[in-house]
Structures are given as structure tokens and as C-alpha cells.
């Protein structure tokens, strides 16, 4: 270190000596009115200022020597009788100096005279100079250069009442010039912070503080401009100064002072922009490195900002809502960046916003709405886990202040956040909060008319809610049941338009719970009997029953059948029977559409076929009903197919399953009769054959049961059927049914294949003569 200072002293001495040396020759030139020589030597002298070796303090000493000499030079330039060159030409001439730093010092010097001569508007010269100085970007050299500019221009600013004021030049121009110089000096000063390796940081900081005054002098100049009254200062100067590229920690440490000034500013000053930008700057600063975060805590940044904003909003009663909310958005962004774990801060900001919104009877400004949405979306984006946002007590209160459309929009944002993050909401309490938040989607709220909604949008909304229900889950059955009950409570009041969407999700949620319960059967010993399959089935019944208000019989039928299967799985016969009853009643009374009936019957038969819980009586009753419905379908072809499907009701392939060969055959024969009738009807009505395919289908069924070992089905019966089909096909040769032909062919191929299998199967099929 000692060496360093010694060296510096040496260099300073060298520099001063250099200046004196060149100045000597410069004086000689001045005395002999030799402009060219004067310029040459002054440029050489100023070159000493090009050094990078000196600290600011030392550089200052050097600078002051040069400064004194430049004063002499200025006097010379002023008196054009001595050198005979007009100031305009002189201004041009000095720009020929080789190196930029001397060139600019000379230019500033001449510029000062130029302005004094009034041969050009002050504003233009000043503008030229302040921009040209950009050519020097080295911090120390640049700062001193601009300091020189500031100094020599002081008394030449077009202030009010000054001789330089004119139509073209106003106080505004003066202010602009000073501010611009100030801005540029600031940038240089800031840049110093980032220069050089870390170990000289301390040294650099020291240097910077030494230079602070230079920068600050501009403000002093500003305050001296008489034309800058309080008005202009408040409206123009202060905001621009506040906008400066000050180091962030500078802002942070002086936060209290800065914020203290804000409420006192006039309403015309866009203080909210100032504050917003300040917070945004600080947020970015916080995000830049984790090291700076303790600083924020140390200065209690959040509470200071929060109080300041509160005061500003209080003071500016006419501030439009959008302004206040924008401030809150900035503050929220700030706290989410700086202390994301402080949920109480987040809640506080939301609470302040609620307070503000409460004072507004009806918020109609769409920009304000957008800001509220931004406010509510920020925590969702920050904490990908929606559950965190659900703990914010003020969150729902903010949502309450949104208009209906925006409220629903926000609800969709929430749901989408959950879906995107694959979040699972696992407690009843949270589900309750969540459904409160999205209540705009779940039910009609005051003033909303469901009929007015665009159908596509409405569907999208409701499908989102339906999907959401599957994101609510807890593997503890008690808790899961609570969750389901809460969802049910909220969705049941949705009205007939919403129920079809939400009921299905709820039902399957409950069915999954049932399985969970079954899986845990052993563990529930000793629990109070709040959780039994029966209880869930009761719940299911109530839920499905609500569909009658829509009405949605087809969906209800499907759901009842699902429940019947579930009851079968729980081995509860009477419950399964009850569900079948409900389904069948719906079929009889509510499902009139032919196509719907066909599907419904197949679902009923298919489900019934799988039931193993029924005793003989119950099974018979239901089977009898099913076959009856089948035979009464409108179209013959549908009848036929449904009836032969019923044949499977009498034959179940597992060990204990029913295997009533006779009734199987009865069904098949009935199907055959229907097929015949269909054939005849077609002949009469259209003069051509009917659906031969039906016969082939029935043939396949014969083969199926034959293979399964139904003794009632004989190989001769099969042969007979094949002959029948062949006859039918031949008699209708004018209208060949290629589909049925191919079908028959592949069926016969199958028989052939089975014959060739050998063994028991082969033997069996052997008896069928083709």
C-alpha cells in the first residue's frame, strides 16, 4: 500500500510538471498571439489529464492545475482581436485536436465563449457539448470533464431574467441540460462500482465517495437556477432525479427519507409511478443476488414501503383505483421476490387492497380490474402450490370485489394453476376455501343469468370444475368423505344446467372412496360407524337423484348401473337390487328415444350379466324384465340383437355361475323368430331380403354356447341354421349382401379351424357337417 501511495505521488508530480512545462510554451504562444501554437500546446498540456494512474484525490490536484491554465486560455479565446478567428470558426478549429480528451476540454472552453457571444442559441451549444462529452467513458476522466462543463456553463444558462433567455431558450432548456449532464455523470459513477477486481473494491468505494460531490454539484446547480420554482422542481426535477440510475443500495439505505418525501408531493406528480418503479427496481435488485436480502430486512424495507403507500393513497383522495391497485401489485411483487416465505406480508398487501376496494361502491374500470387480476395471479405463479394461496385470508375478500365476469375469469385462472401444477388439495378445510373462491363458477350469483352465457364458454367452465374435482384427494377415507361432502354441498346448488357436468365427477370420486374403504376393510375395526359402504351408497343415491331436476335420465341410468356393480363388489345384495330398480324405472319412464334405448338395454344386460350377488329370485325378476324390454324395442333388428344378448344372462362362464342351457336356447330361438319376422317384413315392404347378417350373428351365438358345453345346443341345430342361411342368401341372389357373405365365410372357417384342432374341441366340432 505504501508503495502505491509513493508511486501516486510520483506520478502526480510528473503530471504537474508536464502541465507546467506545456503551459510555459502555451503562455509564450498566447503572448505572441499565435493561435496555432496556443492550440498545439494547450492540447499537449491537457493530454496530461489522460492518465489513468491517479486516484480521484490526486487527479483533482492535476485537474485544478489544468483548470487554472484553461482560464487563461479562455481569456485569449474571448478576445478575437488577438487571434483574428471568429468564435464560430474557433469552435470548429479546436475539434481538430488529436486526442479526444483535450479536444473536448477545448471545445467546452470555446463553447462557453460561443454562448456568451450569442451567435448561437445557448440551448444548442449546451446540447452539443453535453452530448459530445459522451465520447469519454472512463469514469474519473469523464466525471472531471463534465464537472468542468458544469462549472463553465453555470453562468450561461438561459435562466429567467438572464441575458441568455429568449424565445428559443427557456428555463426548461437549462434544466434539461443540467439534468442530462447529471444523468451522464451518474452513469459514470455507477459504472465505477462494477469496474475492476474484487480486491480493490474497498479502494474503489473510497474513490467513489470522493467523487460523490462532483455528481451532487449538479443538483446544487439545479437549485440555483432561479427559474426553477418549487412547482417545476416538484413536477419535473425531482421525479427525474428520482428516476436516476442510482445504485440500488443507495436507494435502499435512504428509503426512509425518500419515502418520507412522497406523500408531500402534489397530485400532479405521478408519485405512484415513482413508487412503482422504485419497488420494481428494488425487486430486481433483490433478485440479482441472495447476498443483498439481509439488507432489505435490516432496513425494514417492506414495512416502510407499505406505510408510504398507505400514506400516499390516503393523501391523494382523488387517485383513481387503478393507481392504488398498481401500487399494491408492485408491493406484492416486491415482497414475493424479497421475502416469499412471509405469507403474512402477502396477506397484508391483499388486506390493504381490500380496504381500498371497500371504499369504492362499484369497481367498473377495466384497467383496475386487470390490475386486481394481476394482484391475485402473482401468488399463484410464485407459489406453484395453490394450497399456499389458499391460506391467505384476504384472498377471497379481494375476489369478492371483482365483478362477476372477472371473478369467474380469476376462478378459471385458479383452476388452471392447479391443473398445470398437478396439485392435489387434500384437506376438507382447503377444499372449502377453494370452493368459496370459485363460487362464481359453481352457482348463479346475484345478477348473473346463466342463460346469457355463451354455451361454449359455459361448457368449458363446467368441464374445468368437473376436472378439478379429481384433484381433491386424501388417502385417509374419513377425510376423503369430508371432502366429497363439501364438494357435494357446493355443487348441489349449481342448478340444472351445471349438475350434469359435476355429478359424474362426484359419483366417481365417491366410487373410488368406496374402493379405498374396501381396501382398508381390516383397519376400520373399532372406528365409529360413520364410514361404511352403506353410508357411501346412500350418498351416491342422493347425488344421482339430483339429476332428476335437470332431467338427465340417460346419465342417471349409467351411474345407477355403476353403483350396482360397486354394490356387487361389496356383496350387498339389496343395495345392488335397489340400484337396478332405479335404473330400470328410469328406462321405463324416461328413456323414449330408440337409439338411447338400445344403448341403455345393452348397458343393463351387460351389467346384469356380471352380477354374482343376486339370489335366484332377484336375478330372475331382473332378467325377466331385461328380456321383456329387449323384445319390445322398436326395430326388429335391435330386438333380435338385444334378445340374443340376453342369452348370456343365463350362462356365466365362471365356476359358480349360472349355466341354464335351456333358457339360453329359448333366447336364441326367440331371437331367430324375430330375425325371421324381420326377413318377412323386409320381403313384403321392399321386395328384397332383410338383414341376413342377423342369422349369421345368431349362428355365431349357437356356436359359442355349443363350444361352452351347452348340451341343449346340438350340432344338427347348427347345421340346420347354416342351411337356413344358405337358403336365404341364395333366394336373394339379386341383392347379394357381401358383408353377410364374408361373415358367413369366416364363421365357417372358424368351424373348420376348430375341427382341425383335434382333442376335445376337435371331436366336438367334428359332429358339425359342413
Amino acid at each position, binding site marked *: 500500500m505504501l508503495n502505491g501511495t509513493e508511486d501516486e505521488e510520483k506520478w502526480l508530480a510528473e503530471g504537474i510538471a508536464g502541465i507546467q512545462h506545456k503551459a510555459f510554451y502555451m503562455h509564450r504562444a498566447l503572448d505572441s498571439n499565435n493561435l496555432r501554437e496556443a492550440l498545439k500546446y494547450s492540447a499537449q498540456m491537457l493530454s496530461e489529464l489522460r492518465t489513468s494512474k491517479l486516484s480521484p484525490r490526486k487527479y483533482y490536484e492535476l485537474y485544478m492545475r489544468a483548470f487554472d491554465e484553461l482560464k487563461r486560455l479562455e481569456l485569449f479565446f474571448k478576445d478575437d482581436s488577438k487571434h483574428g478567428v471568429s468564435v464560430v470558426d474557433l469552435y470548429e478549429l479546436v475539434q481538430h485536436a488529436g486526442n479526444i480528451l483535450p479536444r473536448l476540454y477545448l471545445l467546452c472552453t470555446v463553447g462557453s465563449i460561443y454562448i456568451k457571444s450569442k451567435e448561437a442559441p445557448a440551448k444548442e451549444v449546451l446540447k452539443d457539448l453535453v452530448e459530445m462529452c459522451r465520447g469519454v467513458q472512463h469514469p474519473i476522466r469523464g466525471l472531471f470533464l463534465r464537472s468542468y462543463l458544469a462549472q463553465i456553463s453555470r453562468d450561461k444558462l438561459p435562466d429567467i431574467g438572464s441575458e441568455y433567455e429568449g424565445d428559443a431558450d427557456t428555463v426548461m432548456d437549462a434544466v434539461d441540460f443540467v439534468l442530462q449532464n447529471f444523468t451522464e455523470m451518474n452513469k459514470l459513477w455507477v459504472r465505477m462500482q462494477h469496474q475492476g477486481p474484487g480486491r480493490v473494491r474497498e479502494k474503489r468505494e473510497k474513490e467513489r465517495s470522493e467523487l460523490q460531490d462532483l455528481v451532487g454539484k449538479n443538483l446544487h446547480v439545479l437549485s440555483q437556477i432561479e427559474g426553477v420554482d418549487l412547482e417545476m422542481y416538484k413536477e419535473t426535477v425531482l421525479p427525474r432525479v428520482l428516476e436516476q440510475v442510482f445504485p440500488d443500495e443507495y436507494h435502499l439505505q435512504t428509503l426512509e427519507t425518500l419515502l418520507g418525501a412522497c406523500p408531500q408531493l402534489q397530485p400532479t406528480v405521478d408519485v405512484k409511478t415513482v413508487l412503482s418503479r422504485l419497488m420494481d427496481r428494488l425487486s430486481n435488485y433483490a433478485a440479482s443476488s441472495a447476498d443483498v436480502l439481509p439488507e432489505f430486512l435490516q432496513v425494514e424495507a417492506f414495512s416502510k414501503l407499505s406505510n408510504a403507500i398507505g400514506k400516499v393513497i390516503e393523501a391523494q383522495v382523488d387517485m383513481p383505483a387503478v393507481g392504488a391497485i398498481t401500487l399494491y401489485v408492485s408491493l406484492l411483487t416486491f415482497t414475493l421476490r424479497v421475502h416469499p416465505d412471509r405469507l403474512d406480508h402477502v396477506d397484508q398487501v391483499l388486506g390493504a387492497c381490500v380496504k381500498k376496494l371497500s371504499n369504492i361502491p362499484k369497481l367498473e374500470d377495466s384497467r383496475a380490474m386487470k390490475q386486481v387480476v394481476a394482484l391475485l395471479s402473482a401468488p399463484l405463479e410464485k407459489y406453484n402450490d395453490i394450497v399456499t394461496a389458499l391460506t391467505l385470508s384476504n384472498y377471497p375478500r379481494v375476489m369478492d370485489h371483482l365483478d362477476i365476469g372477472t371473478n369467474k375469469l380469476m376462478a378459471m385462472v385458479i383452476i388452471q394453476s392447479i391443473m398445470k401444477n398437478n396439485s392435489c388439495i387434500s384437506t376438507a378445510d382447503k377444499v372449502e376455501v377453494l370452493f368459496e373462491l370459485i363460487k362464481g363458477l359453481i352457482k348463479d350469483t346475484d345478477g348473473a343469468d346463466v342463460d346469457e352465457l355463451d354455451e361454449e364458454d359455459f361448457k368449458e367452465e363446467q368441464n374445468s370444475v368437473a376436472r378439478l374435482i379429481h384433484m381433491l384427494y386424501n388417502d385417509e377415507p374419513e377425510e376423503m368423505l369430508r371432502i366429497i361432502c363439501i364438494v357435494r354441498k357446493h355443487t348441489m346448488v349449481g342448478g340444472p344446467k351445471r349438475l350434469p357436468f359435476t355429478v359424474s365427477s362426484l359419483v366417481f370420486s365417491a*366410487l373410488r372412496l368406496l374402493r379405498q374403504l374396501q*381396501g382398508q376393510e381390516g383397519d376400520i375395526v373399532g372406528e365409529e360407524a360413520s364410514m361404511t359402504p352403506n353410508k357411501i351408497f346412500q350418498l351416491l343415491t342422493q347425488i344421482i337423484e339430483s339429476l332428476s331436476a335437470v332431467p338427465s335420465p340417460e346419465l342417471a341410468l349409467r351411474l345407477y348401473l355403476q353403483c350396482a356393480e360397486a354394490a356387487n363388489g361389496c356383496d350387498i345384495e339389496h343395495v345392488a337390487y335397489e340400484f337396478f330398480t332405479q335404473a330400470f324405472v328410469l328406462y321405463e319412464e324416461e328413456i323414449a328415444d330408440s*337409439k338411447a334405448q338400445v344403448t341403455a338395454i345393452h348397458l343393463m*344386460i351387460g351389467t346384469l350379466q356380471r352380477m354374482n350377488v343376486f339370489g335366484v329370485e332377484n336375478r330372475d325378476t331382473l332378467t325377466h324384465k331385461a328380456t321383456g324390454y329387449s323384445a319390445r324395442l322398436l326395430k326388429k333388428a335391435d330386438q333380435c340383437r338385444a334378445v340374443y344378448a340376453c342369452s348370456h344372462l343365463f350362462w356365466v362362464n365362471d365356476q359358480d355361475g349360472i349355466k341354464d342351457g335351456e333358457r339360453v336356447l329359448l333366447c336364441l330361438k326367440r331371437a331367430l323368430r324375430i330375425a325371421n319376422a324381420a326377413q318377412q317384413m323386409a320381403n313384403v315392404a321392399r321386395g328384397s331380403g332383410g338383414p341376413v347378417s342377423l342369422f349369421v350373428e345368431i349362428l355365431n*351365438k349357437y356356436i359359442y354356447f355349443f363350444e361352452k358345453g351347452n348340451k341343449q345346443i346340438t350340432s344338427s341345430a347348427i347345421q340346420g341354421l347354416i342351411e337356413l342361411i344358405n337358403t336365404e342368401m341364395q333366394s336373394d341372389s339379386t341383392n347379394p349382401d357381401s358383408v353377410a357373405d*364374408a361373415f358367413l365365410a369366416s364363421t365357417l372357417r372358424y368351424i373348420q379351424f376348430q375341427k382341425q384342432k383335434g382333442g376335445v374341441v376337435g371331436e366336438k366340432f367334428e359332429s358339425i357337417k359342413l
Partner: protein
Amino acid sequence: MVLVLAIGDLHIPHRAPDLPPKFKSMLVPGKIQHIICTGNLCIKEVHDYFKTLCPDLHITRGEYDEDSRYPENKTLTIGQFKLGICHGHQVIPWGDLDSLAMVQRQLDVDILVTGHTHQFKAYKHEGGVVINPGSATGAYSSFTYDVNPSFVLMDIDGLRVVVYVYELIDGEVKVDKIDFKKTATAPSAH
């Protein structure tokens, strides 16, 4: 080499919120030439999503599908193979392979793609192959308590079809493959 995606029984939004993320990231547009969907999507959004994966989309009607205009069954030819699609709730007993074989004969196809049970199956019989891609979302099924999300990708090349089944088991995607070769008269399995 023609890639055919066989997928179905998603039951969105009634039984499942969405396709598993791991499946979604695998199914990219432009890689698949045909999509065969057994039904029970159930909503238009899923239909539109499939369309973005591949414009050649064939769907048959499941009993919960919102769009009731999907056909009950469908046949198409891809390369040397004739394929048939049928959701399967119409075929009783449900999941019964012999009854499904009858449908296969009726539609006169080499490969029958069917669903409803949410159980993956690839079954070869005298008349051809029956493939059930299972449920792509692992949706609740009255058939089985243990539903893993699954779908099938068929690579049809000349007389050969390789069936890749993708199953999501305990959070990991497992792949299995089965080869089928078609002779001039009937297919056989390896």
C-alpha cells in the same frame, strides 16, 4: 412403416382430469399417421387434442361420449391390414374374447381394436387379433380395481404389425411389444 396410435377410455372429465403428464410429453404431433380411438373421450376438448396430434382420426362411440354422432363401429384399411374399431359396451359379455371374435368376423377385419374394460389386451385367435389399449388415463373401471394408464402404438409394416404397449406403472412408463404376422389367409402370432 406406418404408426397407428390406439387409445381410448380417457373419461375426461368424469373420471379423470387429464392425460398423465408423461404420456402427454410422449405424444407429439407429426409422428403418428393414424389415430384409432375406442371411445369415451368424453368431451370435445379431447377430440380436438387428438386432432392436433394427427388429422387422420377415427373414433367410435362410447356410452359416455358427449358427441353421440360417432359411429357404433368403423373399419379402415392401413397397408395390408384391415382394422375394425368398436368401443365394446355393445358386445356382451363385456370383455369376452369369443364374443369379440364374433364381431371381428362380422366386420371382416384382421385387427379389432376395442375398449370398455380399461384392461390392456392383445389376443390372437384364429380370425385375427383383438387389441384393447386400456384406459389412457387409468380411469375408474368396474372391471378391475387396478387400472394403470395405458395406450398402444402399432407399427404396420407390410404383412407384419408390431404392437407396442405403453403402461404407466408406479410413475414410470413401461413398454412391451408383441409381434403379429399376417399370412395370405390369416394372421399368426410370435
